[in-house]
């Protein structure tokens, strides 16, 4: 009995020291605690009344942060790994916190099984399974199979699944407690897609699925021409969607009613994040008015479309990490915008994904059609990005290849025009943030809704 005790206090002590040093977001306390007691995650988890896991390839940080904010606003004591430390050590670090009513835990999709082996979760939200760094999880279907095995360890858990993602819905087969969130046809839905598709094979009979329409990537309304497999009806469905540069509004139709929602987060992928979090909150019987209030005020933290003002320029910095993310970012950030300078900073370090072939899978048409001042390509793979744009139709004199990140920002600041859009892969993000700050940029991020629930 000494070991769990030691593990707990070693972890707490490490957490205390980390806070003293103001080093937030570390996984070190959990790492230490797990080293001493490999079963500590399960022991810690049993101190919470409810545990909700959020996983998937994209959007899990935003979804988990939003759900945690809604729960706090509803007066619940929430424990949450809000810095996106989503590997077992990060999850354990979060659980080392004080007791609470509910733990909302973002969990890495590749290591979900390590968590469900110990943690008896009450609910699991799965956002989507989009292609993301395939050289790490090289097959989406293998990933889906691993998630399916991880879910077998918690047969009683309620699942909240993305109805529009055929790979995710396949995870609901044979389970008792499944609810779906999804998006009805929108004016932006397309009958064909120029993005590269995955996850479009029927999970039952292995025939290619047929699509009535796509929302983005392979998310949409699908059915199998051979068997009965098709998009399930969504208990939490977004309808009458209006998207614009300042965010989105739509009605959330749920079994008991209709909830009009407005979010300041731009992009259709954020509509899915809101649907998932709001659906889960409704399932937790949280007051719909509270949900709408938090959704209306919630903006994600640093890195995900952050605005800066620097000299006379308005700059937007955003993370892109895969073809779907780049396609949607371009669609969102170019919409309704005047002549801007675009800077695409592409690295190929381990955290970015070593293989940059994915650039060719993104739908760059919104950028090609936008009024651009110039397109600057930067980072270790600046040249790959430039060639990709050249073959898609950008004139070489409108392209500028500047691999050095500092130099690329200086060039951008010298360009005419009031707006600059900087899209970065993972390892460029913090770097560009630092470069902008060093040159005196002022961040305009609205902080997360406060813990007390006042908007």
């Amino acid at each position, binding site marked *: 009995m000494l070991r769990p005790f030691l593990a707990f206090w070693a972890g707490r002590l490490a957490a205390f020291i980390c806070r003293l040093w103001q080093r937030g977001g570390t996984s070190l306390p959990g790492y230490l605690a797990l080293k001493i007691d490999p079963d500590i995650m399960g022991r810690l988890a049993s101190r919470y009344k409810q545990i909700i896991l959020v996983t998937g390839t994209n959007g899990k940080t935003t979804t988990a942060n939003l759900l945690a904010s809604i729960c706090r606003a509803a007066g619940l004591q929430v424990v949450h790994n809000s810095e996106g430390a989503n590997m077992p050590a990060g999850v354990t670090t979060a659980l080392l916190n004080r007791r609470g009513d509910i733990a909302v835990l973002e969990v890495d999709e590749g290591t979900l099984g390590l968590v469900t082996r110990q943690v008896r979760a009450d609910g699991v939200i799965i956002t989507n399974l989009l292609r993301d760094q*395939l*050289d790490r999880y*090289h*097959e*989406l*279907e*293998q990933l889906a199979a691993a998630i399916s095995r991880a879910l077998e360890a918690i047969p009683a858990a309620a699942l909240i699944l993305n109805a529009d993602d055929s790979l995710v819905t396949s995870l609901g087969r044979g389970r008792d407690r499944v609810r779906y969130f999804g998006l009805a046809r929108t004016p932006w839905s397309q009958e064909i897609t120029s993005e*590269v*598709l*995955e996850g*479009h*094979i029927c999970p039952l009979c*292995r*025939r*290619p699925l047929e699509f009535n329409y796509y929302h983005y990537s392979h998310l949409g309304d699908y059915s199998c021409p051979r068997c009965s497999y098709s998009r399930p009806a969504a208990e939490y469905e977004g309808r009458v969607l209006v998207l614009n540069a300042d965010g989105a509004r739509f009605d959330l139709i749920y079994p008991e009613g209709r909830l009009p929602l407005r979010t300041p987060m731009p992009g259709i992928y954020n509509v899915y994040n809101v649907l998932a979090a709001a659906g889960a909150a409704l399932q937790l019987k949280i007051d719909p008015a509270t949900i709408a209030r938090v959704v209306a005020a919630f903006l994600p933290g640093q890195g995900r479309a952050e605005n800066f003002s620097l000299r006379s320029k308005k700059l937007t910095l955003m993370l892109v990490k895969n073809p779907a993310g780049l396609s949607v970012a371009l669609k969102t950030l170019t919409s309704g915008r005047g002549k801007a300078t675009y800077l695409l900073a592409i690295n190929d370090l381990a955290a970015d994904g*070593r*293989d*940059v*072939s*994915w*650039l*060719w*899978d993104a739908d760059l048409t919104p950028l090609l059609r936008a009024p651009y001042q110039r397109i600057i390509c930067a980072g*270790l793979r600046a*040249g*790959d990005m*430039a*060639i*990709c744009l*050249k*073959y*898609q139709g950008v004139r*070489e004199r409108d392209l500028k*290849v500047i691999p050095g990140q500092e130099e690329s920002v200086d060039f951008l600041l010298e360009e005419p025009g009031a707006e600059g859009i900087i899209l970065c892969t993972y390892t460029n993000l913090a770097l560009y943030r630092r470069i902008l700050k060093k040159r005196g940029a002022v961040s305009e991020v609205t902080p997360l809704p406060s813990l007390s629930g006042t908007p």
Partner: protein
Amino acid sequence: MKLRLCHLYPELLNLYGDRGNILVLCRRAEWRGIAVEVTPVSLGDKLDPQGYDLIFLGGGPDQEQGVASADLLAKGPWLKEAVEAGVALLAICGGYQLLGEYYRTGSGETLPGAGLFAAYTEAGTRRLKGNIAIQVEELEVDRPVIGFENHGGRTFLQGARPLGRVIYGDGNNGSDGTEGARYKNAVGTYLHGPLLSKNPHLADYLLRLALQRRHGEVELPPLDDSLEFAVNEAVYRRFLPTKGKW
């Protein structure tokens, strides 16, 4: 003059930016005033062996590749007829494996291939993954062909000649220094994704192969490839192993 491209299974075999190769071929033809027509050919479609100048086959995830492989066996005789008649072909990664004689899985099962290349593939344990550079003899510009590979299978040539020699990276199997396979005007390679984008010399070589059957030796006017070759050079040097380093 018109270039007729056939894209096999575009909706199934589409990993890692493979479609970039079609775009590069189209643009490099169009910039020289050659019209291009791209025809998708998929499951159950007939493949006209005389209908195209170049056939392209990419790689895909395991499931999709399985679906395509069954269909490809049925199309095998048409593909062979086309290549025997001098049609050019580019097959990448999974597509390359499917055109060999067979693929032996980890459990010892033997899956027949279309048999275009005298080569076979075996499942390996570790994936061969990373930046790769190869030397291809036939090219008019003396620069390496560079790319990225990511494959579990090891391919062994049984009489087929390789596309090139590995400078760094793994190539066919990580042991014999060969990369890819050639048969007549058909090319198979593990250099996946938008391979032709950083290798304009290889792209033009394929264009000439594609056009020569119907138009004889074609003179392709030079293009400004300074961007492409600068990137080729920079990426090549960046991953070149340093000799004499501990």
